[in-house]
């Protein structure tokens, strides 16, 4: 591109003049977005980053006339790195919002730092119960869910089916136990066994042999990431698919489906969102994402897209006056933006009150050998509130 030197000079002059006059107010909306971009979980971070970039593109790169600048940070899945990034974004880059975060342990470390510095935090995945309860904060919002709500929905669904002898499997760490606790909060039937496996376990053959010997009526698992891919393949290879129905949370999604394919067919999950959710904002998001990146977005992406849209609604409400934090918080509490999940509202703890659906992995457009897609079967919870908001004393 050939630049016109006169125009460049003029622009530089103008920039200097503007820079010298901060009294005009903020010249940009700066958002620090922290996620995991390296390591095995880097795929999740990539999906979130792409969705954020798509949201900025859909906003025309501006919020209330101010240009948007998103600074991405890779937390390497480490809480200390996450905190460092947040501090750096606030002190050095002077961001107006911090957003993102996949993991609950990182969120628990970062959120108090951000809100303590007087900056608004918009979580777009992790929803640890502490932040929904006693650690709730007026500057903290999330566009995702409280961790327990999704397994609660699955517990409710299996309870509604009147099932007994359900076999539970989860990794032996905090979130694994929370998921099963959430499930049992709504499922009151008989539990055949509760099995905790090693975190990051590769081979489930021993567990599957035990499972077959117990002959349960249904299996409920929480095995995120690579663990889920391994478990589903082995479940199908053990000939259990089609014999014992398999229900799960956070185990099958648009990121793992391309790797699991036919071994996931017939899988049930509960979720607050699905690519086939019939909402105009969702259709726009999903089709644009598919066109731009060639794959379907996952719920991680949808939440991150929503995060940027939520921030936009706040900036627009205060007409770009980023100093008016009170006004922005009040605007965000209204959740007045076209969310990919459809209309929802915020509870007193700034966690969404929203629907949860039962999803099933069905044959996709490329046939049985291709990548399956998630399809909504029914609504399990309507306007579900999380189980911790009563502990929240918002100050």
């Amino acid at each position, binding site marked *: 591109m050939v630049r016109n030197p006169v125009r460049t000079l003029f622009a530089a002059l103008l920039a200097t003049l503007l820079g010298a006059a901060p009294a005009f107010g903020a010249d940009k909306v700066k958002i620090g977005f922290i996620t995991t971009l390296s*390591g*095995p979980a*880097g*795929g999740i971070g*990539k999906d979130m980053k792409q969705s954020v970039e798509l949201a900025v593109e859909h906003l025309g790169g501006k919020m209330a006339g101010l240009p948007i600048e998103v600074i991405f940070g890779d937390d390497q899945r480490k809480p200390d790195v996450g905190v460092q990034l947040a501090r750096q974004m606030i002190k050095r880059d002077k961001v107006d919002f911090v957003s993102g975060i996949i993991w609950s342990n990182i969120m628990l470390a970062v959120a108090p730092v951000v809100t303590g510095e007087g900056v608004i935090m918009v979580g777009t995945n992790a929803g640890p119960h502490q932040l929904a309860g006693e650690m709730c904060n007026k500057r903290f919002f999330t566009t995702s869910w409280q961790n327990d709500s999704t397994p609660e929905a699955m517990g409710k669904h299996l309870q509604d089916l009147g099932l007994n002898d359900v076999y539970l499997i989860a990794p*032996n760490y905090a979130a694994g136990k929370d998921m099963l606790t959430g499930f049992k909060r709504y499922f009151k039937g008989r539990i055949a066994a*509760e*099995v*905790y*496996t*090693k975190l*990051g376990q*590769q*081979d489930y*053959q*021993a*567990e599957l*042999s*035990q499972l077959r*010997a117990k002959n349960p009526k249904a299996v409920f698992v929480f095995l995120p*990431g*690579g*663990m889920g*891919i*391994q478990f589903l*393949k*082995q479940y199908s*290879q*053990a*000939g259990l698919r089609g014999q014992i129905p398999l229900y799960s949370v956070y185990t099958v999604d648009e*990121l*793992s489906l*391309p*790797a*699991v*394919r*036919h071994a996931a067919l017939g899988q049930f999950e509960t979720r607050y969102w699905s690519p086939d959710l019939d909402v105009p904002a969702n259709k726009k998001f999903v089709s644009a994402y598919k066109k731009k990146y060639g794959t379907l977005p996952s719920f991680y992406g949808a939440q991150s897209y929503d995060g940027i849209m939520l921030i936009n609604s706040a900036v627009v409400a205060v007409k770009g006056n980023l100093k008016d934090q009170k006004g922005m918080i009040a605007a965000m509490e209204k959740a007045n933006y076209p969310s990919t999940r459809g209309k929802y509202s915020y509870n007193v703890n700034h966690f969404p009150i929203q629907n949860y659906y039962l999803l099933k992995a069905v044959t996709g457009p490329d046939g049985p050998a291709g990548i399956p897609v998630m399809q909504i079967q029914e609504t399990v919870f309507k306007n579900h509130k999380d189980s911790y908001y009563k502990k929240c004393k918002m100050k």
Partner: protein
Amino acid sequence: MNATLVVEQVLNGLQFGVMLFLMAAGLTLVFGIMNLVNLAHGSMYMVGAYLAVAATQWTGSYIAGIALALLGTLAVGVITEVVALRSLYERDHLDQVLATFGLILIFNELIAIVWGRAALFSDIPQALSGHIELFTNLRYPVYRLAIIVVGLLVALLLWYVVSRTRLGMLIRAGASNRTMVSALGVNIRLLYTAVFGFGAALAGLAGLMAGPIYAVQPGMGELILIQVFVVIVIGGIGSIRGALAGAVIVGMVDTMGRAFLKPLLGVLISPTAAESAGPALASMLIYLLMAVVLALRPEGLFPARGH
């Protein structure tokens, strides 16, 4: 707990053990002969899995996948040895750990650049899918049986090469006294490169067999590597016999622990205590075993002679 279930779990343990053996064989040779701590051994496993998946996709033939994965990891192993590891033999173990850890990062990122960070799809070949009825009430996946058979064949082949051939004699001599072997006019450099490449190909074999049952993704090698180190410590560093024994022991102990420890503890102590202690103890079991072996026989169960 019935007999069929026990037999099935024994097969599971054996299959896991065999997988560990393929990894451990290469690692223990490299460690024993070249005195090199190679953390990047798991990367060869990952490279094997990726090459097999990629070649199967390109050509549509599983056999081509196997061939490319084996030759590819052999080549990658040789190149790695010549380019990066040669200069490390005389350095102390800490330098080697640092350098090979760096290699892990390089391999993981290279794989992520070429194939992306998301897990790849890989499926069991048609001929090996399905189940076989071993006896009444025991149907076992054909693919898992195939892994056991391949693993045991490789063990047999390795035993033959190491104890019956000239190359094996040099390998054993190298493990006992490197300086003497080289003083006797053997090109020790070439031997090292060959052993390293061969070890890498074995890891590649484990990787290509692991692909259809595990998640093929960057960093998959590190998940299995720690257990492999446990195997060679238990078996005795530098000894193929030790690697086989250690692998089968670790495979069995781990599998049996996961399957039967909780019900067993439930009988001994209260069921509620077993509920929380069982899974925790089961995942520690192989490390406890390693600690016991280290305390009683620091050289391992079947140490290579001459150390």
